[in-house]
């Protein structure tokens, strides 16, 4: 059951072969068994989950259920969920009980999905390995001595280890796609503005975007149908017409489902820095896509190499602004001793934030400070425009862009914590997508030394339905997304 698609799980419930309570209990039992060694979940509340499952069963009996009704999902601990502890992976919010639901949570509640619990993540979404979490690191289910990726590391491990039917994540520089690649499943970061950020704890407001993390593209499409949509409470939410993301999924596999599709391969994503074995897996995947009818051309994203410096000006700058709300006054950690208000702020923030978060706040504060704003923040915004223009030009020559998601496979725990830049380079292929606001996916494409490798698919604005079908067509002729780690039976 645990390896079934969302559609099949929904069928099990509809046919009464299983109840949502039984399905939820199965996942809760697995969490109980495996979470101590993986640490994917920060908070589990069996009572709440089973109560939701019971309500879902009633809805199924009454005939008012839809495809995700009663399906147990994991929620990244960045989404405020009413009456659930919502920590964002930080000591700062270690005891924060959210008094309201994020839009994403409301959407899932409205269709009767079951919340299995809040998953572990890098602190305030800053990281690529889940090692900055106040609640401890997460282990990659494929190799417990390695990282699952980040910042959505907990959701990633939960999907890979089948501790949920699917999960939500957020992606600011690659935090859905990179863990999807390292843990061998499908993850999608939608076009910026498609999924409301209301109630999603803010890191970098012009880059953050929530998205699905699930075994297959079809599962991601079903999740997107619930997650996407205009929300007036998010000022950056786009009034894009409601879409059915499953609409373009080929119903019957036929010989050349991707005939007529032109795919661009950016030469900058196949250059120095890409692990040779990862490149081989990607090349093999490309052969499969060619068999499905896709045509490949070489393209260039000339400003791609500037993605990292631009991101590490913009994201920390926005983070320094967003995290200034954590002052110990109305919520969050407050120091035990202080002589005056200034000291209260300074001690609370020094104690509540971890090293990486403090580092990024300092960078952000610096680049926004008087005398430096033009040279750094404004300059970065201009180069951001150039990067977006590169993609615009590329999409005149091709429909879809492909490449590796990450330069290598999952690294060992502790391997990159001493060198911030080595960690930042994990996102070298994913970051430009966030800067441009484009949709990006990672699709499992094979293994290198028994570790998962992901293929990245980047689409034009609002092209998620097509991207999902491109991945879906590949997943009809390959089965990487059904592979399960050993020892997680």
């Amino acid at each position, binding site marked *: 059951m645990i390896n079934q698609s969302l559609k099949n799980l929904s069928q099990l419930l509809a046919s009464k072969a299983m109840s949502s309570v039984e399905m939820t209990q199965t996942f809760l039992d697995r969490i109980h068994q495996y979470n101590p060694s993986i640490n994917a979940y920060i908070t589990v509340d069996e009572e709440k989950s089973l109560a939701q499952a019971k309500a879902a069963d009633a809805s199924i009996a009454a005939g008012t259920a839809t495809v995700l009704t009663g399906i147990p999902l994991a929620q990244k601990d960045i989404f405020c969920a009413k009456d659930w502890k919502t920590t964002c992976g930080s000591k700062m919010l270690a005891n*924060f*009980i959210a*008094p309201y639901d994020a839009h994403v949570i409301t959407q899932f509640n409205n269709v009767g999905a079951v919340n299995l619990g809040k998953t572990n993540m890098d602190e305030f979404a800053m990281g690529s390995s889940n090692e900055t979490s106040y609640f401890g690191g997460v282990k990659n289910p494929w190799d417990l001595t390695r990282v699952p990726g980040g910042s959505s590391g907990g959701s990633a491990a939960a999907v890979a280890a089948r501790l949920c039917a699917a999960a939500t994540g957020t992606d600011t520089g690659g935090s859905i796609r990179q863990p999807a690649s390292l843990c061998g499943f499908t993850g999608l970061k939608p*076009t*910026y*503005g498609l999924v409301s950020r209301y109630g999603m704890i803010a890191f970098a407001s*012009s880059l953050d975007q929530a998205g699905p993390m699930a075994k297959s593209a079809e599962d991601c499409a079903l999740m997107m149908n619930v997650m996407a949509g205009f929300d*007036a409470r998010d000022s*950056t939410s*786009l009034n894009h017409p409601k879409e059915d993301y499953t609409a373009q999924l080929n119903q019957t596999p036929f010989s050349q489902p991707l005939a007529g599709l032109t795919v661009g391969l950016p030469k900058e994503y196949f250059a120095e820095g890409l692990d040779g074995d990862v490149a081989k897996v990607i090349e093999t995947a490309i052969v499969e896509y060619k068999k499905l009818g896709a045509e490949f051309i070489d393209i260039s994203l000339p*400003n791609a*190499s*500037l993605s990292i*410096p*631009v991101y*590490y*000006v913009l994201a920390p700058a926005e983070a*320094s602004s967003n995290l*200034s709300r954590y002052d*110990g*006054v*109305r*919520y*969050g950690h*407050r120091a035990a001793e202080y002589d*005056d*208000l*200034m*000291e*209260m*702020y*300074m*001690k609370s*923030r*020094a104690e509540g*934030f971890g090293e990486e978060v*403090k*580092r990024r*706040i*300092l*960078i952000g504060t*610096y*680049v926004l400070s008087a005398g430096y704003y033009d040279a*750094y923040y*404004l*300059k*970065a*915004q*201009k*180069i*951001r*425009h*150039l990067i977006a223009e590169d993609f615009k030009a590329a999409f005149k020559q091709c429909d879809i862009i492909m490449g590796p998601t990450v330069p290598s496979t999952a690294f060992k725990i502790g391997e990159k914590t001493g*060198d*911030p*830049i080595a960690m*930042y380079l994990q996102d070298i292929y994913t970051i430009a997508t966030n800067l*441009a*606001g*484009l949709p990006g996916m990672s699709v499992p494409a094979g293994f290198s030394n028994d570790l998962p490798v992901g293929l990245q698919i980047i689409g034009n604005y609002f092209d998620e339905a097509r991207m999902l079908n491109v991945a879906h067509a590949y997943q009809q002729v390959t089965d990487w997304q059904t592979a399960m780690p050993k020892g997680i039976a």
Partner: protein
Amino acid sequence: MALDNSDIKRIAHLARIEISDAEADKTLSKLAGILTLIEQMQAVDTTGIRPMSHSQDVVQRLRDDVVTATNQREAFQANATAVEGGLYLVPKVIE
């Protein structure tokens, strides 16, 4: 963009984060690499390029000036460290 220990202390103060001398030194060495990385931007010619903050051509949406929020003070203050009479308590600011 070479920073020194006093720069770090000044920036930390702006960010309202307490930092010791030892921590400032440690931060300085970790930041050095990142700051060099950022300098790469200066080599790019951006004359005449408009800064971009949103990929779509959108403007700030406005709404009617009507009250839509409800009073949830008790629920929101449940997370506060110190409250009294519906107010948040902090050290005295004004003499």
